[in-house]
């Protein structure tokens, strides 16, 4: 048993956040504000995307400016297969569509992961500013590819007529879907936490600290960076698949460069290199967006300075500020 009196501040923050996440649906339903369930689902899903970016950005020190590409491609995997399933047609005349979550979600991860493998294989041969620019360029290429892909809606995107099916669960029920998102996020945070302190995680951290030294020690660093990049891409793909299910819609705007920027801002704002911190950043970002956009249509003008203030005054992010000194790395 956990002795509540012996919790340190970090554990207390985790426990409160977890309790809030678990209790949210019954509370907002009782308050007759069901809209908040879908907002909170968005937080969990973007939280997954931001936490996956943290693996490469925070832990690996690789400033990838194209993370939304994997997010978008994961979404399109679900969207395209759903459409074929709905029409009873076949993708490229090869295989039928599907709306089975147990098929399309892993497939979204696979497709995004392979894409990350390919993009990473090229991008990771460079470094610094070149790496930022080349990841950005790849993401923009994909954006324009999907804009011109008329078969699947082009610029207008692709609407689905429902969510994926999950054996034994009704995903069209917002509360069930919310809990599935929560479970997947928690699963990733747990696995990711194990990964960051494993031997593999030590190599990734070592590359961030001093890549030249890692090479001199004999580590073939490129392979490790590529593996990390691929894992992060696959998880971003899952997050895109979940967003596609939540909104029952995908469009090229999922992978436009400002989306990559948004995910990066959320990650930095929450606290890089903590994996869970970015989830707090996402929650704060989406909440501010919600509040400000209800208040004024020029909400982005207000959000910008607010973000700068947060980054300036909470250098280790919102999470670092919440957990205090001991929680920082």
């Amino acid at each position, binding site marked *: 048993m956990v002795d509540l009196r012996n919790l340190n501040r970090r554990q207390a923050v985790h426990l409160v956040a977890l309790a809030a996440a678990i209790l949210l649906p019954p509370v907002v339903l009782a308050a007759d504000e069901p809209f908040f369930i879908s907002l909170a689902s968005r937080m969990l899903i973007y939280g997954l995307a931001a936490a996956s970016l943290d693996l490469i950005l925070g832990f690996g020190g690789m400033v990838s400016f194209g993370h939304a590409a994997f997010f978008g491609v994961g979404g399109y995997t679900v969207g395209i297969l759903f459409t074929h399933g709905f029409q009873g047609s076949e993708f490229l005349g090869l295989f039928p569509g599907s709306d089975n979550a147990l098929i399309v979600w892993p497939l979204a991860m696979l497709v995004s992961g392979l894409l990350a493998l390919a993009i990473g294989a090229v991008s990771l041969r460079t470094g610094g500013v070149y790496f930022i620019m080349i990841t950005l360029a790849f993401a923009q290429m994909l954006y324009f590819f999907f804009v011109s892909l008329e078969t699947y809606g082009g610029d207008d995107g692709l609407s689905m007529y429902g969510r994926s099916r999950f054996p034994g669960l009704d995903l069209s029920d917002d509360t069930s879907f919310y809990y599935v998102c929560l479970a997947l996020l928690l699963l990733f945070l747990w696995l990711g936490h194990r990964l960051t302190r494993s031997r593999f995680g*030590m190599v990734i951290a070592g590359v961030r600290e001093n890549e030249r030294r*890692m090479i001199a*020690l*004999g580590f073939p*660093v490129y392979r490790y960076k590529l593996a990390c990049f691929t894992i992060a891409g696959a998880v971003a793909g899952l997050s895109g698949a979940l967003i596609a299910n939540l909104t029952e819609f995908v469009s090229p705007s999922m992978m436009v460069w400002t989306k990559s920027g948004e995910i990066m801002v959320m990650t930095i704002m929450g606290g890089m290199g903590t994996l869970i911190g970015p989830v707090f950043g996402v929650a704060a970002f989406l909440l501010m967006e919600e509040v400000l956009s209800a208040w004024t249509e020029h909400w982005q003008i207000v959000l910008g300075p607010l973000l700068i203030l947060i980054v300036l005054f909470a250098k280790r992010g919102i999470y670092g500020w919440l957990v205090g000194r001991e929680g920082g*790395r």
Partner: protein
Amino acid sequence: MNDALLRANSLVKHFGAIPASDGLSLEVRPGEIHALIGPNGAGKTTAIAQLSGEMRPDAGEVYFGGRDITRLGADARARAGLARSFQITSLFLGFTAEDNVAMAIQAHQGHSFRFWGNARRDATLRDPARDVLARVGLGARADVVSANLAHGEQRQLELAMALATEPKLLLLDEPMAGMGHDESLRMMELLAGLKGSLAILLVEHDMDVVFSLADRITVLVYGRAIASGAPAEIRANAEVRDAYLGADA
């Protein structure tokens, strides 16, 4: 045919018009301490960089244990048993001393595609790391974040990391750079203690250190080895005296 552990054959490396290595040949035998000396800008660091694989020579070859490694990257050479330390200390500054050495141990233990166990609680990494720290005299400083170590301690840690990979040959670029007198003495004892267990190519300015430690010495001037031999021969060599030792010999 050739019993050298490491052999550089006519290395050439130009930076623009500057020939940092100008047909440099050199041999390190198993188990010996081989000093590489020469005035500032002679090309010692450049030579080390080409031997360690960080820099590609414009021409020439490098052989290690009889095998041509000219085309191998620095990481592959390190795995083959060629370790180096840096003239400017190069550590994982955010990590503790023990973490730093554990990383080197990990490098030596095969691939790191292990995603599960906690590396910081892995006795197969931590125990040998503590042993190596004790060997270089940092046993009591294992838990100090390496950024907070004194300069001399950082140099010791730098050596510990190189030793932790159990190399056949150690390339040491001015291991005593910036050290105080006592620290230098310590480092010298450490290096003397390593004698025979592995080969060392040592770049060093202090002639007292060089002449007391080295089995053989190569003198580098303008990217060329102008002499190579036992300390007594080097001391007696007129060309070396003119070119380099002149002032303090």
